[in-house]
């Protein structure tokens, strides 16, 4: 009896082993495709569409076919897209990940299937999985925005912070960056800290009610540009034009608003550059087996946008 059981256990063990064997064979036999799968979080936010467009344009310029997909900040959906990429035997995956802690497991599945992964914008809390990570230094950018905000406020006054979607690591990173600076100024008083989930309409209604409760607010610092646009619209509607508004991302609508003297500043993310570099490194890796870089993580700094330089940028790219 015990021997029978032993055989049974071995058979059970054999099934996955045989699968692994079959998988290995299949992998070796099939030609690598010419497909780059480009995965971004959202197709409604211009920040992410610009990133996807920049990656797509660079990939096509280098002769690749592309497949674009969005994961909606959902690691499960991200996993499904990666499985699709694996089944289509993609040449590389270019991704702006869903979650710093949950995504590494998804990415690992791709690398174990022999597909190199390149991260752009957001970083994963792991090294040794992605071949390269081209990261927007959100914390540095938030500190830059925080410094400018404090300067515009004259180092004192009442302010409101609009925070992004909680599930997105960068919402917390930016908030920490803002406070890293602002909290060093004891005369800066935060009267409200609310989330508006990266949304323009939510930001409008949040600021509308905050201004009713606190009519003497001097400034609003926002975790991204769409929320800054919503905040500025609520300020305009309330007829309080002198409230300082700071955004984050550098989208074209905010650049226009800055040039019109409404929104006071934003932080430009190097997102087109990250996307292009990710594709270029992927191409190099596919052709030579190496990215040629000493380090996996490459941290690209953000830039401060003021009325003086707002006209130098379009589509997250420096044009002047």
């Amino acid at each position, binding site marked *: 009896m015990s021997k029978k059981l032993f055989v049974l256990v071995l058979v059970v063990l054999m099934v996955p*082993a045989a699968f692994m064997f079959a998988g*290995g064979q299949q992998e070796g036999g099939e030609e690598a495709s010419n497909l780059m799968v480009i995965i971004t979080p959202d197709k409604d936010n211009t920040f992410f569409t610009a990133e996807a467009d920049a990656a797509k344009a660079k990939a096509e310029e280098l002769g690749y076919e592309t497949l674009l997909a969005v994961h909606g900040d959902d690691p499960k959906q991200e996993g499904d897209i990666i499985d699709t990429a694996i089944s289509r035997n993609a040449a590389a995956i270019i991704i702006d990940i869903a979650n710093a802690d949950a995504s590494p497991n998804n990415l690992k599945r791709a690398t*174990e299937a022999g597909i190199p992964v390149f991260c752009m914008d957001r970083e994963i809390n792991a090294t040794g999985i992605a071949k390269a990570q081209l990261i927007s230094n959100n914390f540095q950018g938030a500190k830059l925005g925080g410094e400018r905000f404090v300067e515009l406020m004259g180092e004192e006054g009442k302010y409101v912070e609009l925070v992004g979607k909680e599930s997105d690591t960068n919402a917390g990173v930016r908030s920490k960056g803002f406070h890293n600076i602002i909290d060093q100024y004891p005369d800066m008083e935060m009267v409200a800290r609310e989330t508006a989930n990266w949304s323009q309409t939510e930001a409008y209604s949040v600021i509308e009610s905050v201004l009713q409760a606190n009519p003497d607010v001097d400034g609003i610092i926002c975790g991204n540009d769409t929320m800054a646009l919503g905040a500025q619209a609520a300020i305009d509607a309330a007829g309080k034009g002198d409230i300082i508004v700071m955004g984050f991302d550098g989208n074209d609508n905010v650049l226009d608003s800055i040039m019109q003297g409404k929104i006071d500043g934003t932080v430009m993310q190097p997102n087109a550059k990250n996307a292009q570099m990710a594709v270029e490194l992927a191409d190099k890796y596919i052709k030579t087996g190496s990215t040629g870089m000493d380090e996996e993580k490459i*941290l690209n700094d953000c830039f401060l946008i003021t009325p003086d330089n707002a006209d130098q940028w379009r589509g997250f790219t420096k044009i002047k």
Partner: protein
Amino acid sequence: MIHKSMIIQRTLVFLILIALLSVGCTIKKIGEEDKNKGGDEYSTWTKSGKAFDPVAYVDSIWDEKLIPVFKEESDDVNMVLQALAEDKETAVEQYGLKHKSGETEPTFKVKGTAKVAEYDDSSRNGLFMLDLPPFDGETDVPMQVGPVIRKTAIRDSVSFISFTDVGNQLQFASLADELNKRMKKEAVEPLDLDTIEGKTIQFYGAVKLEEGQTIDDVVITPVHIEVVDEPAGEED
């Protein structure tokens, strides 16, 4: 007899299974080797518990590595400023440190002697307005002394600190903050700020030029300040 043949049969099945299993194992191993080819082992910094400790790290490098690197590698502040005034690119080439990875803007390590022409504490980002030799009473360059210290010049001016070694951008930023904090303790706190105006100091410091910045935006972040015209014995 039946019993014996069954045992043989089972032994055969067993051997085949072992063979198959070992084939499976081999393939998995190749996969692992492949994924390690890229460099480090998997290291999750937030979950593994080996979170980066900026205080301990700065303790371990400040006296032993950082200050010696500044003493050894700093260039005369006047020379660097002059080079920057002429042409930024050439100055970066000659005196600057450009990090190997990423697009970090260039940094400079500088040293010099200066008179504190003015101590401007109107902002929390307090500044010494420095008059460099020849002493003509004019301010040549500001040096930030806090209590708020801006930016990451100290962290970014030494080549032995790299982003990949530190983990993620928050930890990398906490390292810069800790270096700035340590600088205030070592270089600024021992000074008597009420009587600093008019005194001559010797210093080592870092300069980082952000995107688009020119010589007009240079602010020195000190790592070491020593008042030199005090009566002997008052300063050590």
